[in-house]
């Protein structure tokens, strides 16, 4: 297409998507996007994946983005199409996932008239996007689409919405290519300040009890960031922990790995956070699930914080050395300066620190009571891991206990292989996310570790999986409870299990069959391995009903109002202790 040639708005949309290398769009049609769907029909560069609910499209795009490092793309109609996308947009905003969501809108002359399927899409999505646009003139469309991709993928990634009225999709306008298009003014800082780098290196070099606390920013920064992180750990022998979002950046088999930290993190990771003298936060944001009680958060440490978003710095925790910039750039600089100065850590101090850590490790905080008759949920994840470890496997999750057990017991060796809803905690994320991941990695084994309650939120996407022959595996840890809710009710509300029992669960095997998937069930530990093998072998989507102990609790746990060094460990908690774990001060909290 020659620059300057007139095209319809709908053609411009498809042209822009193709020019940005978009191969898959997750969407759902409706009146206000029909011209775009008509264009989709008449080309074959961009493949459209028809979901069954717009929320599914957004999570599929998130899974796609997170597992590839590319931008996820969503297309939905006006009104209910746009409002159904809101949960996924918010999810992507909180977890910093790049996503471009195109929404249809009623024709410009009807905007504000309460027209059929009109809603104030830019108004509704303003607080749940990084930025959004309403396109009123077809001649702005190409530029705005390019800006949208630029904004979604640069700086701290996030979702954007481009709202396109139907008349703009029909109108003829000029297409300009994406070359050299950036945003007029938006220029996030990528390269860190070198004084900050030098100060950080200086501080690390003097540390006696250093600790790396890494997060989703390492994943977002790309595979190179994980490589540099591994190199730095190897050079310095510093222990490393990660948030839920950062798992896989450093391999779980690595000798410096302490496991995940935070509310359900390991004893050694949280104790090390509490007792370290230099904390190096790489691409994490001091989330409240990580810090626990703020006034007792790592009281003796100097803190370095590497983050691409300046607003993350000093938001909740005051740090000593802020480093604003992209993680890969910052790590590269740190490694370079470290080598140039031939720094070495105090070997004796570091050995003593490791000795302390080994004592904490010896507590084996993830241990649980094995059972011969009932499948323990932790055991199910362990078996799933062992039986799939020789494969290229991507894990997504829903939200609840199963999510935390997956994070604790599945061992992630590489970045981009773990997709979970961390910031928003969206039940229903995992199944559509698995659809998106499988679309991007057709040959890989993609498993959604699910809960019996969560899976019912977006289970219609099984139909999408069947339509596109995506052999995703939905592995339900069926405890017949909203387990995480039940656990909190036990801990915080006198074990009054208000509305947390999963009443009237569907027969998941029959449900699978109704959708044209394969249903499998395991009820006894003895049959688990065979069933899992069967699941892996099956070249179709599988819904796996794994019946697990219904009242198991997820430990370790930092109870509310408590510090990192006041964890509850599974083994030594009696029911009594569970009931009194939260002291009076903790209970006051709203």
């Amino acid at each position: 297409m020659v620059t300057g040639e007139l095209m319809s708005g709908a053609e411009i949309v498809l042209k822009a998507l193709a020019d940005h290398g978009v191969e898959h769009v997750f969407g759902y049609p409706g009146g206000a996007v029909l011209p775009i769907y008509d264009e989709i029909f008449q080309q074959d560069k961009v493949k459209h994946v028809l979901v069954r609910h717009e929320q599914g499209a957004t999570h599929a795009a998130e899974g796609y983005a997170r597992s590839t490092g590319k931008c996820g793309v969503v297309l939905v109609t006006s009104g209910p199409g746009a409002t159904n996308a809101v949960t996924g947009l918010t999810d992507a905003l909180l977890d910093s996932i790049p996503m471009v969501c195109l929404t249809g809108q009623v024709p410009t002359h009807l905007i504000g008239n309460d027209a059929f399927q009109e809603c104030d899409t830019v108004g509704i999505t303003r607080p749940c996007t990084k930025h959004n646009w309403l396109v009123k003139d077809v001649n702005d469309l190409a530029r705005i689409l390019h800006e949208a991709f630029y904004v979604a993928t640069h700086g701290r990634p996030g979702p954007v919405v481009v709202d396109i009225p139907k008349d703009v999709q029909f109108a003829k306008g000029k297409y300009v290519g994406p070359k050299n298009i950036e945003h007029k003014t938006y220029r996030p800082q990528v390269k860190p300040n070198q004084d900050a780098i030098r100060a950080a290196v200086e501080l690390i070099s003097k540390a006696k009890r250093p600790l790396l606390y890494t997060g989703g920013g390492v994943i977002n920064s790309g595979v190179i960031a994980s490589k540099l992180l591994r190199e730095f750990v190897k050079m310095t022998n510093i222990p490393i922990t990660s948030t839920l979002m950062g798992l896989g950046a450093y391999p779980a088999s690595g000798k410096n790995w302490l496991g995940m930290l935070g509310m359900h993190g390991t004893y050694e990771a949280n104790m090390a956070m509490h007792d370290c003298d230099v904390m190096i936060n790489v691409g994490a944001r001091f989330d409240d699930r990580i810090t626990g009680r703020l006034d007792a958060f790592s009281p003796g440490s100097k803190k370095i914080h590497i983050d691409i978003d300046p607003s993350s710095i000093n938001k909740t925790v005051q740090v000593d050395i802020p480093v604003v910039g992209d993680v890969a750039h910052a790590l590269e600089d740190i490694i370079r300066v470290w080598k140039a100065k031939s720094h070495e850590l105090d070997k004796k101090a570091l050995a003593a620190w490791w000795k302390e850590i080994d004592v904490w490790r010896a507590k084996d905080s993830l241990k649980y009571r094995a059972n011969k008759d009932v499948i323990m949920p932790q055991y199910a994840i362990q078996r799933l891991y062992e039986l799939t470890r020789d494969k290229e496997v991507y894990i997504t999750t829903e939200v609840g206990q199963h999510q935390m057990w997956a994070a604790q017991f599945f061992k992630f060796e590489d970045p981009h292989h773990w997709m979970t809803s961390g910031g928003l905690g969206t039940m229903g994320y995992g199944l559509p996310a698995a659809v998106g991941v499988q679309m991007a990695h057709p040959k890989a084994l993609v498993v959604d570790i699910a809960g019996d309650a969560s899976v019912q939120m977006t289970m219609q996407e099984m139909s999408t999986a069947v339509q596109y022959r995506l052999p995703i595996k939905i592995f339900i840890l069926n405890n017949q409870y909203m387990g995480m809710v039940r656990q909190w009710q036990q801990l915080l509300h006198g074990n009054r299990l208000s509305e947390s029992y999963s009443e009237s669960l569907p027969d998941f095997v029959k449900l699978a069959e109704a959708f044209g998937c394969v249903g499998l069930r395991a009820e006894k530990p003895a049959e688990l391995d065979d069933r899992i093998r069967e699941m892996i072998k099956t070249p179709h989507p599988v819904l796996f009903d794994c019946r697990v102990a219904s009242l198991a609790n997820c430990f370790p746990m930092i109870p509310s109002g408590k510090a990192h060094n006041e964890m509850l460990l599974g083994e030594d908690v009696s029911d009594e202790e569970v009931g009194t774990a939260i002291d009076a001060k903790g209970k006051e909290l709203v």
Partner: protein
Amino acid sequence: MNAHQQPTGSAYFLDTSKKTVETHTLAVVADNEPGVLARIIGLFAGRGYNIDSLTVSETIHDKHVSRFTIVTTGTPSVLTQIRHQLERMVPVHSVADLTVQGNSIARELAMVKVAGGGEKRMEALRLADAFRARVIDASTDSFIFEITGKPDKVDQFISLMVPIGLVEVSRTGVAGISRGPEGMKV
């Protein structure tokens, strides 16, 4: 097990310590595109920040650039957060905390309607003169004064007009600018 006797609790940590708040004036330069005001106001509302005063107008017409002056109250760390949160908005070019920079000027304009007769009328004119307020409308039993100055001067003038017969006030809110030769990044 007597867990049922335990009162209820929460999983959030609440910080109850009291910190002193300060009032700062921020200047924000941003693209004058549709929704930019809603975006900025939405940020304050959504994150629970205060707006004491907000003024905005397009200041560079050919570039469609607007300048906001926002007066806000918060603890020092909240005020820093506000600045960072504003800075990361896509249409925002630059943000300056005029209070932190020091050496800045804040002005406000008010139109003050006063009604009454006799000695009160004379008193109103005398005070207006002292405050360099101008009469911009008059009838046999009312005046409208226009006054510009620092917000506290405007406050003071208005409070003096109350016993004389203050009817209503329209204020622009504060506009701020730093002294010296440098301007903000546009």
